[in-house]
């Protein structure tokens, strides 16, 4: 090795292992965190609370989708399955057996992880479009099952029985939405922390590698199939947590809505818009699309339902034209590239 290379190697090893985001980005992050913590007291209307709860919920759901698509490169169109399983697990256990939703949450996580294995083992060998098609069809099938299954209320769904004695034990808050807000904030924060850790772990590196090239990943000792199934399990578990909280929040389970392809596609849209494979892209996507849909519903009444989808479509087209990899990906790559000291 020549002297030049040796000194460059020393300089390279002295660089931070993880690139630091620029100061202004840290400042934005700190301000956003402060705003999120104070939000329910700054904006006190029930509508403001409701909108932010939905943003946090969808930020978690979109992140769950991002884990599978953005990191392992598998486009799932059936993620509503896990959302529905989470909501039904806690509600069925509580409505029929009086079990606390906290235990239901865990059962939902386990069921969703098991479902992810059952779905993932045969379908994750399919590449690209075929996995997307398979998950879309399995998603519709699961929805049909829940619409016909009498024991869980068939098409009319289930109600979460009202319980006023112990709000934190039964996860029901009837006076104010604020506890729901902080619960969702905590759940979303945990989800993002998990993914932040994941991206800096060996497992996360391996996922990104196999996303870019299966064969090269295998040639470096990565068990591709096992990693994909494991990722699908983690993602399904995250989605299931969101499902349980959603069920406790709305207190009505409608299989038509919970297992809809619309939910699966919405989490995709949010992630793609914000930047799939990035940490904050899914949150940004949720923060853009949820208010859009909530406000258009108010301004335009019942017809707002379709207008928001038109606006989504236009947004996606614009993003595809200007930032095909999503709003945040260019920014994140700029941080990762960093200045090379030579």
């Amino acid at each position, binding site marked *: *090795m020549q002297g030049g290379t040796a000194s*460059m190697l020393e300089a*390279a090893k002295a660089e931070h292992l993880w690139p630091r985001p620029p100061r202004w980005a840290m400042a934005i992050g700190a301000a956003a965190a402060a705003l999120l913590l104070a939000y329910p007291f700054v904006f006190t209307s029930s509508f403001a609370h409701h909108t932010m709860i939905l943003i946090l919920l969808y930020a978690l759901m979109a992140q769950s989708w991002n884990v599978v698509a953005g990191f392992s490169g598998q486009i799932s169109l059936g993620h509503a399955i896990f959302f529905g399983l989470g909501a039904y697990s806690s509600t069925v256990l509580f409505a029929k057996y009086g079990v606390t939703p906290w235990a239901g949450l865990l059962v939902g996580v386990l069921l969703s992880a098991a479902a992810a294995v059952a779905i993932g083992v045969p379908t994750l060998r399919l590449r690209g479009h075929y996995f997307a098609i398979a998950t879309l069809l399995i998603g519709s099938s699961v929805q049909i099952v829940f619409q016909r299954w009498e024991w869980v209320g068939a098409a009319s769904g289930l109600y979460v029985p009202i319980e006023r004695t112990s709000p934190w034990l039964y996860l029901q808050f009837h006076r104010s939405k604020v506890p729901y807000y902080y619960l969702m904030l905590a759940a979303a924060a945990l989800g993002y922390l998990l993914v932040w850790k994941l991206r800096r772990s*060996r497992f996360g590196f391996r996922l*990104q590698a196999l996303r870019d*090239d299966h064969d090269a990943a*295998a*040639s470096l000792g990565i068990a591709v199939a096992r990693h994909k199934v494991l990722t699908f399990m983690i993602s399904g578990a995250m989605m299931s947590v969101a499902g349980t909280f959603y069920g406790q929040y709305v207190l009505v389970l409608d299989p038509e809505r919970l297992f809809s392809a619309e939910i699966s596609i919405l989490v995709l849209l949010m992630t793609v818009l914000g930047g799939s494979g990035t940490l904050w892209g899914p949150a940004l996507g949720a923060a853009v699309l949820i208010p859009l849909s909530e406000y258009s519903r108010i301004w335009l009444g019942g017809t707002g339902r379709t207008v928001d989808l038109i606006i989504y479509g236009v947004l996606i087209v614009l993003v595809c034209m200007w930032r095909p990899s999503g709003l945040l990906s260019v920014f994140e790559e700029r941080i990762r*590239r960093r200045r090379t000291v030579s």
Partner: protein
Amino acid sequence: MKPLLDVRGVSKRFGGVTANADITFDVNEGEILGIIGPNGAGKSTLFDLITGFQPMDSGRVQLDGRDITGMRPDRISALGIGRTFQKLKPFSDLTVTENVMVGALAGTADMKLARDQALECLAFVDLLEKRNSFARELSTGQRKRLELARALATRPRLILMDEVTGGVDQRTIPGLVELVLRLKEQGVTVVTIEHNMQVMMRLADRILALHAGRRIAFGAPEEVRAQPAVVDAYLGTVADAS
């Protein structure tokens, strides 16, 4: 001495095409074995069979006395065979350092250690300057070096290199040849596919010549080059010219 890699009677057919027919050879620890043959001779298929990327129809492969026939590619990699691909396969959305870290992570879960090992491999292939670029931004020659660094980061006992000097500009060839010789110095056993006969004569301790999926010669470079079958199949024009 027992060979490090022992390949016995390996065959592979794709429909009516015989890609490999009853190929037998071995690789000794510490040597550079070159594989030559015209396009379609079955060189890359042979790599795929050895590393488990394609199932073989018959035959068997042993690594240091252990049967690895039919194992999955990731298992074979874990046992110490690294490889590069003729059609390059960089992780395009990862940086150069991150690409090589994926290889280093085969041996450690410590991210800092993996990073430092990755940087050492990059220094070895002289790609340190590009460490913070994305793999998709590299030239073909740089990508070849990247693939080599990535495979080396897994600390293989044996590395299979598919056309290291293919498709790169002439000026960079001596550097790549130098690189392979330095690998050998470090005790890595090398099997390399090479079209450039001059390069091969400089590098190889022994040469395996393939033609139409069959072994037509195997031995010391001078011997192999002198064989009429090799001259006919591959070197005809070179022999005429000299």
